[in-house]
């Protein structure tokens, strides 16, 4: 029963959550806190805070952790499968059937039609990341980090993962006292 509930809860989240993982957080909270009462509100926000301190997709971190808490490793796998697999299969079916029509002009037109829409979505996402950077770090630091990233990644051609890893190391190795002063 627990497994069936876990599966249904994360299946619903996966199928109703538009806008990627972060957009589905409220849906997860509704299932986990309000409907099945697997966690309190406070536990949920603690878990979310911890999930946000780690890199990687948030939806699968939450699903995996909640599934694990509810019923161990099998619960974890169950919740992950329910939130990930249905939409991955949909993607594969849709895109492979589209690819079999690849040589037709109108299919190439479809690819072209979608490019500007993707550009707008990414542009908005970019702007949100810039805005959040400025509120968190202030104009000066945020701009310095932006300029340094442009130089290293776009001009020098450094792998973005190396730049990000260096930033993470810098924060972790910096003397703690200094980090406190900056807050």
């Amino acid at each position, binding site marked *: 029963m627990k497994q069936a509930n876990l599966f249904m809860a994360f299946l619903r989240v996966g199928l109703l959550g538009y806008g990627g993982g972060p957009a589905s957080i409220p849906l997860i909270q509704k299932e986990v806190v309000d409907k099945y009462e697997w966690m309190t509100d406070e536990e949920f926000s603690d878990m979310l805070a911890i999930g946000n301190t780690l890199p990687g*997709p948030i939806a699968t971190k939450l699903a995996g952790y909640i599934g694990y808490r509810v019923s161990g490793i099998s619960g974890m796998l169950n919740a992950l499968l329910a*939130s990930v697999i249905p939409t991955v299969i949909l993607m*594969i079916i849709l*895109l492979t059937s589209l690819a079999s029509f690849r040589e037709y002009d109108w299919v190439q037109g479809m690819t072209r039609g979608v490019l500007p*829409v993707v550009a707008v979505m990414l542009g908005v996402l970019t702007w949100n990341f810039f805005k959040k950077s400025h509120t968190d770090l202030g104009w000066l630091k*945020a701009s310095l980090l932006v300029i340094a990233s442009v130089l290293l*990644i776009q001009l020098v051609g450094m792998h973005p993962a190396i730049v990000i890893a260096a930033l993470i190391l810098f924060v972790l190795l910096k003397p703690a006292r200094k980090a406190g002063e900056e807050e």
Partner: protein
Amino acid sequence: MIYWEIFLAFFIPGIVGYGGGPATIPLIEYEVVHRYDWMTIEEFGEVLALGNALPGPIATKMAGFIAFEQAGILGAIVALFATIAPSLILMLILLSVLLKFKDSPKVKLLSSVVRPTIAVLLGAMTFRFMETSYLDSGWLQTGFMLVVSYVLLEKIKVHPAYVILSALIYGALFLH
């Protein structure tokens, strides 16, 4: 070794992408378009658009499909594992430690410090999509579609799935 490449291509974005799935998109693009040449930017755009039109987490949809195209079901499983497992395992192992540090300024600073770099990557990707669209369909069509989709998505707040569907139909009718 294709499975090892697939593992790395999705492990790296998963482990450095702060800010959830959407933050990992430009990192995935770097690996699959620039590093391994598995797809062109147009194909990546198509995958991203359909991924946005469908519900569910974006990073896993992209990983599953891209790896399936390269190396079948096993490839998709490897990519999903590489996307999901590292951060989830860290979370399960470090939970008690992290609970203590979740309010520490240092830990909060982590995502803030990484965010401007992700913003630059996203911005560069936005630019590449506009450039490709200009090369494929010209300034007039690109400009027109940029404005219309911005108004629909951000001003009128039409659901992205409908905007993408309309763009597919518009493209099929007018852009070839």
